[in-house]
């Protein structure tokens, strides 16, 4: 069957480069994330060896700093979340009744960008040294002037993180669109299995939080490559001694990073919470006690997570009132967590517990999280934080939280291993691994609470604390050894394990257990529906009937969110499709024609990898790096074009639950979701501008830092050009609706011409400003001149890049319109218009902020 979809069998290596199927991608995520766990874990063992004695005598100073920094970055970015998203990829479509994610190729692209971003991280070690300034990358230690040597490895790390963030953003858009457009009929949002619900809230946080990180990283990359001066102090001849012209440099990074960083804690932990809840339900045989309140608590945490970030900045120069507010919000966020913890404990108390390996890991995770949570409250109190900040208390606390999350995910690996492989692992060995793991974990991290006075990220410490550090090192190796047991168990069980059957766990009720292990390529034997209150698989005929009925009612699909759907439940299968099954039903149901293979996502990502590797060294002027950047850029662009031209069918479900986006077609919802993320990206750029300007002095800024030659008129002309181009896009829609080919083409060509005019005008303006010779600016006003010029060129440059991308799409559409496309169907123009109007809206704020005020 798989050959019908252009997908080779699983035994073929080429399948894994081609596949866009969510289950394959899930497996790829899981394996790749485990690789990065080993990578980051080996680094941790190395610096734990270093810490056996209080001096840098094994790795050396720079080696230690690199190992610590890379360990943090790999574990937080390349291991925990991607590991969770391995499960999310595999399970969310199965749990909600979809046959794949909404945009399968985009999903594959996310994975390959993730993999290549990790490889770029690895390559950075071979560019002299990699980044060594800690995983939080505080400014100004993250800028080239403060990095020893050429710092190319550090630049690669920044670019790798950008690539990773791009993968995350695409993934967020994909998951949200999937979960709001592809739920089985009758499956309300509140009734989807708790793991999928946790992923839903996770991707909401990711959508906004990672956009702020992307802004921070793009600005940092610009400081590295283009020479802007956001995060470094003023360049006074050859020294960088003063902070006269950019007093906000360090704090800006802290704000941007922690606006992302604190939601990131929950981004990491929520999927683990979902796994814990699933395992608690299954292995106690009880529905989660207080399920509704558990969900409400998660929603509250997801929202609150965006208003606690400054508790990471209590020791900076921010004012006391804001510290007080953030102390209150931080203590407040612990309350919904209390409720969730009690819900899990009470579920356990009310049920009959079976101590299987997945449950042991889930219970262990809960215990560790309680310790991590309580010790974290200390850090949320300003006065205590003054003492604990920068010590091993913080290290111990966040490992008890983050690795508690990882502990639950390892439980998830055992829990879903039979579903993914069709084989059962060795239960006894799994239980032994848990024992070794739990012992090693606590021996590693608990002594850090006792030795809390050890300064964080430093390889020297008082000799009196050596015993605790030695214990921690032993614990680290025991923890590491436990993974050997896990890998052995899971690997050997692939061949020797007993067949798991569809559902090896009594009381597991979510929909993935209703299909074979592993599930077939198309997931279900029919179209899943919960309309009757239990899971059914509808045949094509029934689907066609319901589609017609819904169309007759004027909805086009089942659009309500009513019904009494269950979290899984009994399974019945309606009569199989017969020869009379209607073709249109096949078409819309997508059961026969969905595509599953594309090579382009791999190629786009490979091109991106080469481009970024090249960009990391362009500031040296090296021909090798320049060539890589150019060739990589061509490969990326060419592959994107190839992907656009490739026939690939990912149909919408014929009947599905789509509240609250029932009338928003999936491409449109995907575009809007992406734009919401872009709003935060531009918001963070504009916010950065506002912040450094406030730090400098809002009104003095214009007089001190901006030349008289920077006038309003070029901005006003560009405003007129963009407004007019936006007007022409809506006229193109009107013309397409009226099936006026000439009108459509004329409007699109007009849009293109005005956009080009915008860029030319901007280019002329920039040239002029680069070459002014005034008393205040004798060497012109360029990217490095001062913080005002940096903000001006980078923010309007980012906008210009958006215009350029829009123009490429516009040119492509104009050619297609010329060939007769879009007539009578203006949706594609509308979706492009959503982007183009957004670019217009951004300019409506850039114009006054950068040209008038």
């Amino acid at each position: 069957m798989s050959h019908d979809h252009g997908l080779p069998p699983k035994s073929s290596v080429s399948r894994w480069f081609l596949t866009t199927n969510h289950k394959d991608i899930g497996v790829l995520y899981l394996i790749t994330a485990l690789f990065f766990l080993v990578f980051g874990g080996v680094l941790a063992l190395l610096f734990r060896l270093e810490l056996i004695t209080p001096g840098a005598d094994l790795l050396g100073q720079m080696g230690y700093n690199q190992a610590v920094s890379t360990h943090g970055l790999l574990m937080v970015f390349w291991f925990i979340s991607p590991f969770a998203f391995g499960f999310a990829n595999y399970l969310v479509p199965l749990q909600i009744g979809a046959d794949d994610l909404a945009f399968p190729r985009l999903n594959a692209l996310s994975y390959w960008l993730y993999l290549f971003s990790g490889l770029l991280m690895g390559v950075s070690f071979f560019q002299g040294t990699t980044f060594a300034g800690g995983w939080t990358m505080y400014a100004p230690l993250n800028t080239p002037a403060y990095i020893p040597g050429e710092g190319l490895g550090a630049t690669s790390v920044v670019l790798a993180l950008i690539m990773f963030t791009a993968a995350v953003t695409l993934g967020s858009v994909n998951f949200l669109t999937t979960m709001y457009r592809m739920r089985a009929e009758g499956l309300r949002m509140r009734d989807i299995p708790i793991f999928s619900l946790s992923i839903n809230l996770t991707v909401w946080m990711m959508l906004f939080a990672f956009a702020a990180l992307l802004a921070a990283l793009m600005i940092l990359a610009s400081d590295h490559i283009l020479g802007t001066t956001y995060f470094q102090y003023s360049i006074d001849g050859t020294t960088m001694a003063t902070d006269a012209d950019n007093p906000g440099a360090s704090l800006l990074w802290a704000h941007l990073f922690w606006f992302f960083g604190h939601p990131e804690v929950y981004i990491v932990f929520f999927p683990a919470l979902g796994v814990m809840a699933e395992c608690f339900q299954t292995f106690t045989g009880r529905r989660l006690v207080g399920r509704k309140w558990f969900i409400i608590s998660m929603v509250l945490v997801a929202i609150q997570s965006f208003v606690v970030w400054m508790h990471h900045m209590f020791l900076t120069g921010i004012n006391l009132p804001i510290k007080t507010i953030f102390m209150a919000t931080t203590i407040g966020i612990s309350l919904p967590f209390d409720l969730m913890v009690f819900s899990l404990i009470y579920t356990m108390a009310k049920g009959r517990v079976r101590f299987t390996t997945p449950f042991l890991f889930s219970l262990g995770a809960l215990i560790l999280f309680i310790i991590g949570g309580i010790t974290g409250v200390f850090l949320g109190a300003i006065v205590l934080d003054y003492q604990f900040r920068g010590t091993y208390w913080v290290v111990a606390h966040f490992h008890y939280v983050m690795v508690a999350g990882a502990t639950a995910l390892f439980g998830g690996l055992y829990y879903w291993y039979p579903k993914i492989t069709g084989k059962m692992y060795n239960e006894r060995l799994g239980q032994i691994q848990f024992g070794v793991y739990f012992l090693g974990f606590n021996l590693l991290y608990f002594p850090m609470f006792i030795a809390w006075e050890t300064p964080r990220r430093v390889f020297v410490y008082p000799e009196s604390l050596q015993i605790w550090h030695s214990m921690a090192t032993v614990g680290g190796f025991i923890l590491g050894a436990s993974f050997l047991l896990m890998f052995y168990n899971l690997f050997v069980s692939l061949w020797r394990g007993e067949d798991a059957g569809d559902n090896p766990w009594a009381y597991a009720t979510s929909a993935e257990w209703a299909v074979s292990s592993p599930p077939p390529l198309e997931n279900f034997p029919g179209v899943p529906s919960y309309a009757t209150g239990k899971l059914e698989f509808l045949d094509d005929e029934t689907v066609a009937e319901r589609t017609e009925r819904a169309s007759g009612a004027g909805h086009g699909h089942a659009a309500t969110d009513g019904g009494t759907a269950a979290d899984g439940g009994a399974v019945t299968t309606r009569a199989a499709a017969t020869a009379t099954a209607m073709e249109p039903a096949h078409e819309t149901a997508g059961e026969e024609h969905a595509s599953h293979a594309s090579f382009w996502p791999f190629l786009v990502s490979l091109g991106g990898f080469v481009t970024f590797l090249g960009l990391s060294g362009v500031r040296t002027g090296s021909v090798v790096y320049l060539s890589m950047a150019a060739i990589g850029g061509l490969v990326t662009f060419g592959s994107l074009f190839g992907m656009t031209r490739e026939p690939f069918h990912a149909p919408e479900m014929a009947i599905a639950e789509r509240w609250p986006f029932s009338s928003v077609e999936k491409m449109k919802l995907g575009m809007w979701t992406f734009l919401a993320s872009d709003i935060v990206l531009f918001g963070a750029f504009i916010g950065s501008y506002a912040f450094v300007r406030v730090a400098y002095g809002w009104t003095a800024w214009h007089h001190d830092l901006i030349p008289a030659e920077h006038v309003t008129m070029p901005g006003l002309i560009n405003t007129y050009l963009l407004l007019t181009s936006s007007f022409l896009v809506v006229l193109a829609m009107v013309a397409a609706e009226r099936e006026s080919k000439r009108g459509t083409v004329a409007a699109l060509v007009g849009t293109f011409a005005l956009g080009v005019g915008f860029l030319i005008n901007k280019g002329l303006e920039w040239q002029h400003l680069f070459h002014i010779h005034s008393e205040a600016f004798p060497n012109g006003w360029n990217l490095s001149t001062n913080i005002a010029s940096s903000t001006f060129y980078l923010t309007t440059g980012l906008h210009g890049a958006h215009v350029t991308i829009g123009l490429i799409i516009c040119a492509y559409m104009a050619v297609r319109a010329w060939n007769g496309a879009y007539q009578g169907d203006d949706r594609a123009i509308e979706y492009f218009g959503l982007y183009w109007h957004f670019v217009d809206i951004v300019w409506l704020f850039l114009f006054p902020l950068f040209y008038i005020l």
Partner: protein
Amino acid sequence: MDWKGYTVIYVVLFAFATAQAVVEFAGLVESAYWIAFAVIMVLSVIKAVGVAAYYQHLRWEPRAVTYLVVGGTVAALALTGAAAYSIL
């Protein structure tokens, strides 16, 4: 919405953009900076809402799409506002 409606919106947007420049050309930015700031930013907000509501058709989409956009905007404003306030 037909082309006439879109045209009316366009004319209003064009006029508001001009008005923003006129505020500066009239010298208000120099003489009464914060009044000029308020006027210009309010005009920008009105223009942005106009483009979103009519050109991006938010008026005719389910309210949830507007919440999505407002969510992103609130996040960006929270970051900007709280960060700027923290150093006042």
